[in-house]
């Protein structure tokens, strides 16, 4: 091997590029972007720093780097990959980038823009909420539920957290050639039962069949409409310092159940999915505390993703105490073994609510009066700490941040 063989990685990186046609690789482009941002920043800060070459203390230099990163993160999101990867569906950073850079960019309008779980629509003076969700969970049947009740509960919950009363759902099925009819009957029966439990009707639908190998058994899409009859103003941007952040019960049950149900890990534990309709629980909460600022159901990306959404939309800090986050011992154990943080594991029947700090006790009491909320807990607060940053006081007594998830620990969770 001679040095003649040595190529610059940055020069041969074309092909993994952005398709911008500029000829350089994404690395080159990222570096150019970086240099440009740095140059303009240096320009802006020059008058304030006449000393110029003075070497700053370590802590100050670290602070400068953190500020620089903060600016980089505020730049307009752009999809750098040439193809969709599993990360784009994981609910973390890549998903957010894809949604903002592709979908929001294409469809931008005032109903879509807030990127809440459901869109608020006003039709002939009637305020309604509309949402849609697709379900590709694998396996189709798992302890505590199946793709059918997931498809009903997920859409019901997206409407409920928007403050709407869920009313009507659609159901679209994409079925693979060879899928057992008995399984389809099982799925539709649990959809029927879940709809009855949530007090909604499936009023329209669609069926498509694709060749064997072109889908994995059964995929379901549901859309739902609900009535916005309450006088509440919900949205994560409404959160402000001092607000309490509440979860309605132990987190991560669904994700860990699915992980174990796949049988790839040879771990057994007594855990079932938490899939459940939250509209009843939410009605209780809103009756008791109409001042609720925001609600989310913690699905893909887990509670950590929602905390980040709160911090960034409210331009405030969030501080959570690890000791206060309810997690079942079985779930913690499985997560410890697998090196996964329960804060990122999906739930399918857990509410995250932001309420004014002085209303937290009332909210907790209201939630605990319902069987679905009996383990509700305040896990942290919105703070005037660094905006957009979620900090965790660890059980060990240290402090760290909780960022958006990168990559996908577990695809096809719902």
């Amino acid at each position: 091997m001679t040095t003649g063989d040595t190529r610059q990685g940055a020069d041969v990186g074309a092909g993994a590029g952005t398709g911008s046609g500029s000829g350089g690789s994404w690395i080159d482009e990222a570096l150019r972007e970086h240099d440009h941002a740095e140059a303009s920043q240096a320009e802006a800060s020059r008058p304030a720093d006449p000393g110029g070459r003075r070497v700053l203390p370590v802590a100050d230099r670290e602070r400068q780097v953190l500020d620089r990163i903060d600016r980089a993160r505020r730049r307009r999101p752009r999809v750098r990959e040439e193809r969709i990867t599993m990360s784009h569906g994981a609910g973390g950073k890549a998903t957010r980038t894809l949604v903002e850079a592709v979908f929001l960019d294409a469809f931008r309008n005032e109903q879509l823009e807030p990127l809440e779980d459901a869109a608020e629509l006003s039709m002939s003076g009637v305020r309604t909420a509309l949402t849609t969700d697709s379900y590709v969970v694998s396996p189709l049947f798992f302890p505590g539920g199946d793709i059918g009740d997931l498809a009903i509960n997920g859409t019901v919950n997206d409407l409920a957290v928007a403050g709407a009363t869920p009313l009507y759902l659609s159901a679209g099925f994409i079925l693979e050639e060879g899928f057992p009819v008995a399984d389809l009957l099982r799925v539709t029966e649990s959809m029927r039962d879940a709809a009855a439990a949530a007090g909604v009707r499936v009023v329209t639908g669609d069926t498509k069949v694709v060749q064997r190998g072109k889908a994995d058994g059964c995929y379901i899409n549901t859309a739902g409409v609900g009535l916005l009859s309450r006088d509440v103003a919900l949205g994560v941007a409404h959160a402000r310092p001092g607000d309490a952040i509440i979860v309605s019960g132990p987190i991560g049950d669904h994700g860990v159940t699915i992980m174990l149900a796949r049988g790839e890990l040879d771990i057994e534990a007594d855990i079932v999915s938490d899939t459940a309709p939250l509209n009843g629980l939410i009605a209780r909460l809103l009756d008791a505390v109409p001042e609720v600022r925001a609600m989310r159901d913690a699905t893909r990306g887990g509670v950590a993703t929602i905390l980040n959404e709160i911090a960034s939309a409210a331009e405030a800090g969030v501080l959570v105490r690890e000791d206060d986050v309810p997690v079942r011992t079985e779930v913690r154990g499985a997560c410890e073994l697998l090196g996964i943080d329960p804060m990122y594991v999906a739930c399918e029947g857990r509410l995250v609510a932001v309420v004014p700090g002085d209303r937290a006790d009332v909210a907790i009491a209201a939630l605990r009066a319902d069987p679905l909320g009996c383990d509700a807990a305040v896990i942290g607060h919105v703070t005037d700490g660094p905006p957009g940053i979620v900090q965790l006081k660890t059980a060990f007594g240290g402090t760290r941040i909780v960022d958006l998830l990168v990559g996908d620990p577990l695809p096809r969770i719902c």
Partner: protein
Amino acid sequence: MPAMRFVDEFRDADQARALAAKIAALCEPGRQYKLMEVCGGHTHTIYKHGLEDYLPESITLVHGPGCPVCVIPMGRVDDAMHLAAREDVIMTSFGDMMRVPGSTGSFFDAKASGTDIRMVYSPLDSLKIARQNPDRQVVFMAIGFETTAPSTAMTMLRAAAEGLSNFSVFCNHVTIVPAIKAILDSPDLRLDGFIGPGHVSTVIGCRPYEFIARDYGKPVVVAGFEPLDILQSIYMLMLQLSAGRSEVENQYSRVVPWNGNMVALKAIGETMELRPYFEWRGLGFISHSALKVKEKYAAMDAERLFSVPGVRVADPKACQCGEVLKGVLKPWECKVFGTACTPETPIGTCMVSPEGACAAYYNFGRVERHRVPEAAGVSSAAAGKS
């Protein structure tokens, strides 16, 4: 949260405060201490639990080269891609490796473009895939230190026992001691002591580190992976430093036998041998620092079965992974840290693996330290905290 056995007792905040006070008391005024945690697993624990909050300002933890994914040079990723691109090959890999950038993208990118690369939790899963696909060659992308080499070796022995003819290994196993020696010989850095790698030591034991204490006069404490393990190891290092001792000690004795694991070492010795030299990302070529498949198992050696280009690819100019791996730079001191290089679009390997120093700092540590009062030699009670 209910307490969890074997976990919570190693994360007890009261014990941590007590240790922090003892550590602070051992610091000589005006002296700076640089301790290297060799293993990326320790780096991860340190940031994930916010352990630096318990250390006085005079103790700096320097992150070492013990992150399996971080030390793989770009050329080896390209070689693996070359193998994976063959129609007759199914490549299997640990999840960590999937996002490591080669010069034309990562395994994940290749997978999205139709290359058959499958993620496995254990190398044994590769044998299952080999049995199911008798007409294709299943190549396991073997990476890691002595921690993972035994599982690769056992998988090879199992394949041989079964007479499986379509399983092979693309061997990138490396050994930790030559890398530590390279760091000790590097003029860039003055270290005071080492937090020794716990998992590697379960296999090789503690003896291989004796030269560090003997020839270089630096203390070594082999440490476990819970935050109290690491804090206790720092305390043990500080005890040695304050007494002017330099010895190898074993904090992780509940898992690490002093002489290592003979069965595991035998399995490695049966199937693999040292390479004359191997390229490490950022550290360059290091003699006798990696393993290759032995001649006896040539039929399971992907490098012998297929032609591997073996082209050397230099790291991107802006990437300072080498300096980070040697502990010369803190992650945030790298020019592109957090701006051009982030976990979602990593340029360097240190930003990829959860054990990489840059990823650990970016994901967990990007916040000002909130030191506990004990770290400054004050008790929490005196500082008005319960």
